[in-house]
């Protein structure tokens, strides 16, 4: 089955992925994604009826611990990595 990725699909994926692609990048992405999906489609040859999806290889369940603070306040160093900060807080462009 040959997959064809429409302009709308690439736009939609761009929104989900929070990526802004140039015209050239979009064309390339359409081709790459169609090729990959063609390739991935070979999985449909396998009968997986009644097979449980395996998200984790070990029977691990939720791991809980007490919510106790073990580290000190390192906010000054954390904020140092921010592209912009103000009064020990992250600064971002206007949100609305």
């Amino acid at each position: 089955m040959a997959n064809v990725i429409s302009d709308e699909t690439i736009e939609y994926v761009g929104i989900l992925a929070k990526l802004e692609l140039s015209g050239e990048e979009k064309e390339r992405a359409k081709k790459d994604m169609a090729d990959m999906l063609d390739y991935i489609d070979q999985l449909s040859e396998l009968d997986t009826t009644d097979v449980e999806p395996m998200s984790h290889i070990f029977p691990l369940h939720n791991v809980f611990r007490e919510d106790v603070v073990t580290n000190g306040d390192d906010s000054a160093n954390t904020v140092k990595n921010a592209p912009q900060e103000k009064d020990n807080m992250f600064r971002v462009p206007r949100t609305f």
Partner: protein
Amino acid sequence: MELLNLTAVKLAEKIKAGEVSAVDAVQAVLAQIEKTEETYNCYVTIDREGALAEAERVQREIEAGNLTGPLAGVPVAIKDNMCTQGMLTTCSSKILGNFIPTFSSEAVVNLQKAGAIIIGKTNMDEFAMGSTTETSAFGATRNPWNDAHVPGGSSGGSAAAVAANECFYALGSDTGGSIRQPAGYCGVVGMKPTYGTVSRYGLIAYGSSLDQIGPLCKDVTDCATIMEVIASHDTKDSTSMPREDYNFTEALVDDVRGMKIGIPRDYFGEGLDPEVAAAVKAAAKVLEEKGAIVEEFDLDLVGYAIPTYYTIAAAEASSNLERFDGVKYGYRAEDADELHRMYKRTRSEGFGPEVKRRIMLGSFVLSSGYYDAYYLKALKVKALIKKAFDEAFAKYDIILGPVAPTTAPKLGESLSDPIKMYLGDIYTISVNLAGLPGICLPCGLDEKGLPIGLQLIGDCFAEKKLIQAAYTYEMARGAFEKPAGREE
């Protein structure tokens, strides 16, 4: 220089005996870096002053008898996707080009407690997405055996640094073969432990259900010794598995009598270079002569591992890489006057093409309407692949095969055709899907003089069997050659 040719364990012995100091070792590595780094580009960051200062401190601790472990005083290189407190950690990406972590990853902390001295951070494929180290935002790394060839990837900088004597050992991470394949291409030993054995705390995630940290080093003894130091149960990683036995060096035993080794026929099919096939078969013969029972068998679903892997890894990557948005750290696009535009531009300018390709594929396979057909289907096939391995390990102690279909390709030959590049992962990725341990060690050279990697795969938690078989093979093989072009 002779000092540089020592293994990590041998160097530590000499430091302990007072024959050389940790400072001598760091100086020797820095001198080697001075000579060859311009050619190979193994590192993103080299911390000369920090390493020398730490060497002096560690040397004092060794002399005072406070540091007595088997790696104390030995210089190590860390892949640049593991956080190192106060030291630039970039994932070889523009988007993290200025990120200085406020904490260190657990594996690094474990090494430092054992007296390791961090020389610097090694180059990699951007966010560990690639098989050649060519997708790095800081230039490709070159293979010390022949600098026209790639070192493999994504831990290519770590593998090349070990092969070039620019460190005594290194840490890498393996999501689909990223320790084992570059180890194979660079003629060094690399191990991917059972999932959950080494804490992922502080490892910048790519595919969280697949990622594992492991060693790249000069021989199997170093490998077992490093494993013993870095493996630990860590409550900061909820997928960390407590293990009963961390005494990996106990398995350094030259004996495979009665060990059952299976060779999957499907690993020797179309696409495998005949020279690689011959070298790997010869290695199997060596183990057979040492008393192992070697048989060929049919491992199911080999070809389906690649599409399964790329679906799951891309899905997890698209989720994990959401955090890079230009707010808390790293690169931010300039002049965006609105928050969402800032996110989009930051990510579009900050990520390279291969990372964007996988984020987009991952977003698609997780999107409403396609989730069942792609992502859920892949998780079901993963269950079938795991079952195929379970059946194999009911019959065999170890699975033996090549690590990659060819030796290291030339630079510039791989990136134009992604699917062809992904096919090169066929022998390594199913190991990550099934959470198994795997080790790669050199077993010969091809006509071009490039190393060929032998891969041994074990059942979950069976690292010691792997180490024992690898050690036995290594004893029979003898010392492996060194890159011819390397200046000593």
